[in-house]
């Protein structure tokens, strides 16, 4: 089902599709296990196109657009297996733009010259997103953070947006990659990109204030991350579906295209239902929520559904390919691997449902 878009939105999507087309499986393969798993100049290009400041108010130099526009760009990034962290950079820029005076890192983050990424997660199941164990101490007028963040997409990052418990409860802080007491260790993922553990010991930090109209800055950034990851997951499953439908039309067994067999047709329809329901859910939520004040139950619902559906779809796409889909040289496996990574970050489907139970008051 097509989206109803304005002509500006259609142009934006076309530009993003063009950017994604220049990426794709071959480029993504090239970045596997590299030190920095993306092309910094491509990130700057995304900055030049305005996408990294897409949510940033125009008063702070951004495009002042909404979640729909963010999703349109990231859906294409997902389709193209784009490795540049456009979504993380864009939501970080949105966070850096919240205060009365924008954070000094905002401009370079928006134009892609520097990369700032969120570091909110401590636990593999995100049970503590709202209650970070990371501590912020205020001494001599300067703030210092101590603690550990996990599963940080730290590749090529210049700084981090970190949730920590301060004097007034959880707040958001900026820490420079090269700050004293800041230590990173990375592990490889099946997707070719790394995830890092960030250990801070009395690392100097500054507060990133929340926008007046919004809830707590940590929650606002978390909800943005859930929407951004979901949009990318949507693109991943849509492209995997497209590749698989093509294969079903072409591959022959028993003298006819395998896509003519009813059992495979119905499985293809099940895939389509997943992509379409995730799509409608994501874009309806995007259209009806302010980027700085997303209903957290909806953000969680979107991520739960996108995470579950992306795994369902990409797994089914491999099955529909048969043995060829199981080889490393075929592209379809790359979509499953990207789905494994994105669906697991900031809480998998089960973790989101756990949060949803409380957010939607399903306990009494």
């Amino acid at each position: 089902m097509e989206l109803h878009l304005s002509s500006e939105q259609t142009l934006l999507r076309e530009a993003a599709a063009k950017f994604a087309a220049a990426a794709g499986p071959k480029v993504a393969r090239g970045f596997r296990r590299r030190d920095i798993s993306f092309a910094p100049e491509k990130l700057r290009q995304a900055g030049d196109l305005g996408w990294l400041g897409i949510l940033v108010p125009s008063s702070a130099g951004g495009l002042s657009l909404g979640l729909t526009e963010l999703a349109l760009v990231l859906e294409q990034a997902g389709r193209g297996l784009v490795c540049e962290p456009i979504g993380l950079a864009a939501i970080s820029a949105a966070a850096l733009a919240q205060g009365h005076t924008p954070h000094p890192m905002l401009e370079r983050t928006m134009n892609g010259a520097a990369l700032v990424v969120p570091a909110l997660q401590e636990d593999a199941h995100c049970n503590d997103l709202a209650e970070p164990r990371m501590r912020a101490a205020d001494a001599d007028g300067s703030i210092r953070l101590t603690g550990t963040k996990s599963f940080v997409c730290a590749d090529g990052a210049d700084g981090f947006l970190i949730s920590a418990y301060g004097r007034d409860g959880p707040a958001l802080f900026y820490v420079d990659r090269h700050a004293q007491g800041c230590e990173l260790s990375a592990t490889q993922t099946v997707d070719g990109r790394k995830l890092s553990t960030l250990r801070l010991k009395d690392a100097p930090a500054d507060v990133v204030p929340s926008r007046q109209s919004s809830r707590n800055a940590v929650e606002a950034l978390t909800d943005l991350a859930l929407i951004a990851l979901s949009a990318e997951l949507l693109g991943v499953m849509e492209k995997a579906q497209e590749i698989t439908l093509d294969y079903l039309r072409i591959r022959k067994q028993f003298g006819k295209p395998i896509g003519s067999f009813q059992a495979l047709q119905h499985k293809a329809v099940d895939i389509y239902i997943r992509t379409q329901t995730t799509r409608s859910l994501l874009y309806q939520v995007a259209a009806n929520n302010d980027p700085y004040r997303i209903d957290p139950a909806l953000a969680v619902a979107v991520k739960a559904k996108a995470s579950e559906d992306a795994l369902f779809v990409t797994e089914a796409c491999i099955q529909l390919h048969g043995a060829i889909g199981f080889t490393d040289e075929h592209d379809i496996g790359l979509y499953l691997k990207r789905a494994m990574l994105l669906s697991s970050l900031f809480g998998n489907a089960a973790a989101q449902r756990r949060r949803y139970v409380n957010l939607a008051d399903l306990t009494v």
Partner: protein
Amino acid sequence: MFRHDSPDEAAFRAEVRTWLAANLPAALRGRTNRPPPAELMPWYRMLSRKGWIAPHWPKQHGGMGATLNQQIVMTEELAQVGAPQLPAQGLNHIGPILIEFGTAAQKARHLPPIIEGSVIWAQGYSEPGAGSDLASLATRATLEGDHFIVHGQKIWTTWGHHSDWMFALVRTAPQAQPRQAGISFLLLDLHSPGITIRPIKTIAGDDEFSEVFFDNVMVPAENLVGKLNDGWRIANALLGHERLGTSNPQFALMALERIKTMARASGVMADPTFQDRLAAASINVIALAALFSHAVELTNRQHGLGPDSSIIKIFGSELLQALDELLIEAAGSHAAAEQPIATDFGVVDVSTPFLQVRRATIYGGSSEIQRNIVARRVLNLPN
């Protein structure tokens, strides 16, 4: 559900809520079966007088011409108060078809009674030998002078024995190939001589369906909708309306409320494993609401969703079944109770909706047929 109301919408919601609270009879709230006409139609007519019976119809034909968001607000408020299911064949099916394909005389004659609730419509598509393979239908209509003579049988006719009129697919060119090219779309007065109607009792204990027998029934030629032998196209053109109607999230929202009541009463609401399944179901209900809104939006703008409406039917009906499976899980050993269960949290009917919802994936084109349609016509998979 995924929106904050605009000030206008909030005002409209308040108006709807207040009016429903004041006007919907208590006996009609939270019903799992469709109340019989004597109970239901006065409420239908009350909604009609208020101008709210057909939110999606254009104003010129007596509809409300509501915006998408107003329609969603109404859906949510009707679910909230537990409003009963209305007969939908007039409002969601033949009404939009006549608006699109009817003659001026047909519109003038048939649309007002639908809006007023003075006439109930039935759909005459399925036959004993033509269910999933609808194009094989055998009920004949032979033009003799200015009348068709109709002979044959329809089955699974929802509310047939309560209905005044039927819109039916009939075979007018027996030799035509493909078979779809020999089918016409006809309006039949069910009070005509030669018609016998027999209710069919369902596993849920109600008689939602009928068999309708036509023994050389005379039907005026002016009751043909569209051109002769063009009935297949007409029946399919606006199928999206019917599929949208049957997948209105109102029913899923009401099912969720029923589950919660039962789960509170049986104590399982405090069980995290149940909460988890309820969360999964709730998230799918939000997704259905989103899909529905998206579809209504496209329908409003482009006039017709096409075969994509099938996925709404599939997702909506299979979700309803999953919800009612959760309902009997919540009921525990109450699951098989035939009558509604009185609890501290209200009366809940468990087995009836569970049994009723079996038909959701069968009627209006089974899930299997819908998947065939999507595979061929949306995904362009080969034959």
